[in-house]
Every structure is written in structure tokens, then in C-alpha cells.
């Protein structure tokens, strides 16, 4: 059985989003480097995989899937009986809601914060304080909703860890490496949820494969 090929950069949070799920399923995969800095994502051989020219893309034999959240659904569905079962057999309305909440409330704020506070320093530029403040303020309000929800639910979809939790982990990881980790740590139920899911053995394997930069100097 050919191993799965995950195209992208090991430091890309959207690639880590997929690696998280691949590891939860206990699947063998290789990361095939697509270096954004050289424009590899706009070259014909990558565009043949993802015509939108974005990482990640997943190759599973003859099947190619792009968009990290679509890839994760595909993996969770096809390999349902392998490793942790991330999609309930009886489809869960709550899971579907929180998958979308990640995509439309959490991600649009977490992503710019990670870009400003982690990526820009790596690229040799400095965070824009206005952008940081705007998204930190918005993410705080979003996480207040998470706090209330997680006070009544162990995981986002209820009692079980599902794809809804898994899809958050990459950006939670990168956010936790920034000064805005306080957004997580100041909310006891969000913090407890993050610490619980971050301690999953499969996630430790995911983290070990990421060459995380040292924390930026204050």
C-alpha cells in the first residue's frame, strides 16, 4: 500500500492540521516539500494537484484532495476504522456546527495572529500592532463562547474527541507559542481542553515532526 503523500511545508499550520488527523488515524504518510518561498506552489506540477495553488494537498493512490478541512473529512471517513474514530457513526449536528465555528470564527482570527506574531519574525519583519490588537480582541470574544461551551461539554461535540477538536489543534499549537497564548490560558475550560487534547499521544508525534522556531524575543 503506497504511503499517503502530504504536499506542503512542515511548518505550515494548515499542513499540520492534516498531519494531526493522519497521526490520529495511525496512518503512514510522507510530507513532500512544496516550498512557498520558491513559488513551488504555483508551478504546473503542483497546480495539477491543487489548481488553486495552495498547500496542503493529499495524494492517496489515485485520489487527490485539497483544502485541509476537506482532506481531514476524507481521511476520517475513508479510514474510519483505523486509529481514533473522528466522525460519529450517527452524524452529529453539534460536530458539524463546531467544525464550521473553527472555520469561520476561530481560524479567521487565529491565523492572522500566528502570521503576525510567529511567521513575520521568521521572515525578518515585525508584527503590525493594529492587526494583532484587532484579531486578539475578536478572538477573545470567540473564545468566551468556547469557554461557556466547554464548561458544559468535555469536547466540542460532547463527550468524545472528534474532528471538530482535531481541526483546531494546529493553530492552538502555534498560538500557544505566541504572547497571545494568554487568550487560551486565561480561560480555564479552554485551557483544560487544550491541555487534554495536546497530551494525546498522536499529537505528540505530530509536534515532534515540526521544527518549531525558538520563541521570539520580547
Amino acid at each position, binding site marked *: 500500500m503506497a504511503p499517503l503523500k502530504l504536499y506542503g511545508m512542515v511548518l505550515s499550520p494548515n499542513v499540520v492540521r492534516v498531519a494531526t488527523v493522519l497521526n490520529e488515524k495511525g496512518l503512514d504518510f510522507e510530507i513532500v516539500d512544496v516550498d512557498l518561498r520558491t513559488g513551488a506552489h504555483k508551478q504546473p506540477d503542483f497546480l495539477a494537484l491543487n*489548481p*488553486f495553488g495552495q498547500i496542503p494537498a493529499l495524494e492517496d493512490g489515485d*485520489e487527490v*484532495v*485539497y*483544502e485541509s*478541512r*476537506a482532506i481531514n*473529512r*476524507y481521511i476520517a*471517513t*475513508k479510514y474510519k476504522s483505523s486509529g481514533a474514530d473522528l466522525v460519529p457513526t450517527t*452524524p452529529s*449536528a453539534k460536530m*458539524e*456546527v463546531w*467544525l*464550521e*465555528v473553527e*472555520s*469561520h*470564527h476561530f481560524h479567521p482570527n487565529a491565523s492572522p495572529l500566528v502570521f503576525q506574531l510567529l511567521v513575520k519574525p521568521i521572515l525578518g519583519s515585525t508584527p503590525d500592532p493594529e492587526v494583532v490588537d484587532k484579531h486578539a480582541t475578536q478572538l477573545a470574544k*470567540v473564545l468566551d*463562547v468556547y469557554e*461557556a*461551551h466547554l464548561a458544559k461539554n468535555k469536547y466540542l461535540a460532547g463527550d468524545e474527541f472528534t474532528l471538530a477538536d482535531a481541526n483546531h489543534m494546529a493553530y492552538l499549537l502555534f498560538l500557544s507559542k505566541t504572547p497571545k497564548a494568554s487568550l487560551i490560558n486565561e480561560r480555564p475550560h479552554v485551557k483544560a481542553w487544550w491541555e487534554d487534547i495536546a497530551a494525546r499521544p498522536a499529537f505528540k508525534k505530530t509536534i515532534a515532526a515540526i521544527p518549531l522556531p525558538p520563541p521570539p524575543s520580547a
Partner: protein
Amino acid sequence: MAPMKLYGWVVSPWMGRVRVCLEEAGVEYEVVPMSRSGGDHRRPEHLARNPFGEIPVLEDGDVTLYQSRAIARYVLRKYKPELLKEGDLEGSATVDMWMEVEAHHVEPALWPIIRHCIIGPYVGRPRDQAFVDECLGKLRAVLPVYEARLSASKYLAGDDVTAADLCHFGFMRYFMACEYAGVVDEYPRVKAWWDALLARPSVKKVIAGMPPDFGYASGNIP
């Protein structure tokens, strides 16, 4: 079986997305109208349904859902799973990919254009043309990919309509009514796909409640 309840204002593109899916699935539902200008979505009774204070919200018995695409998936999975290509691994992955493409490439490009060019004049918001141009650039970047896709099949996930196409409805409806509709007209397959969606009975029914100016000109402010 009590009809489902869909809370919100029908001119909302997010409401439109959900309503075409409800109509396609042949689901019995009633719209519970809410007032945006009256701040109904921020009242405690609505926050109890959706703590993010947004519409639409669907109530189906004791199940309450929000986020338009989650509602769409729930409704279609329950009543018309073929529109999600459930049970077809490759097909459902294609539906999911194009739903994500719409969510991350199309809606975020169209909504600011709609806000600035259609709604802005009615609410006294000056247009940020630079931002509109940036959004048009994002749309122009993805239209060739759509054109190529729709040259290979009639709809985004194959020759039959699916949730992937339907999820585009609400925002395309308003964008195609604005001064920049010509951008899409340059792509004949995309234009034909949009025209095919417009011809569907579900779309005709839902569009009837979505005047191109959101109701502002006639004083029916949402």
C-alpha cells in the same frame, strides 16, 4: 412531524444558502422572521440558540444548529444525502473540496464587494474602492479554475447539482446584481452554471424574497 424552524431575515445571503438546500431537499419548514435593524439577533433568547448572535439558526425538534453550511449538511444528510454524495468517497470529497473553496475563496471575496457596492450607498458608508479592487482581484484569481472545472462537468462535483453548487447561491445572487457582474460574464461556463442554478425551482422560490437591493430602496430594511 412539526416543520423545522429557520430563524433569520430572508434577504440574508446566508439564509439564502440554507433555504435553497431546504427547498431542494423538499423539507417542510417555516421561516421565523427576525429584525436585523431591531437587533433581534443580539437578544438573550436568540443568544440562547446561537451564542455567536448570528443567523440563520435551524430548529428541528430538540436539535438547534447554526452556521449555514452546518445547517445545509444536516438538512441534506437527513433528507437528500445524494446532494452531499454520501457513500461515494471520491464524490463526497469533491463536494467537500468545493464547499471549502466557496467558504475560503468566494464568500470572503464577494461579501465585501456586496457590502460596499450595494448596501454601502443606503447606509451612508463610503466605498473603499481599493478594498473592492483587492476583492475583485481575489475573485479573478479563482474564476479561471472554476471555468476549467465547469468545462469538465456541468456542475462542480459532476453532472448533477450538489451542495457544492447550492452553497454558492446566496452570495452569487447579490454579486451578479451588482455593477461587477460582468467579471463573471467573461467566463462562459461559469455564467452558464449560474444561469442553470437560477433556473432551478428552489432558487426561483428563494430569490423571490431577496430583492437585489436587500430591500433598502423599498424601505424594507432587514
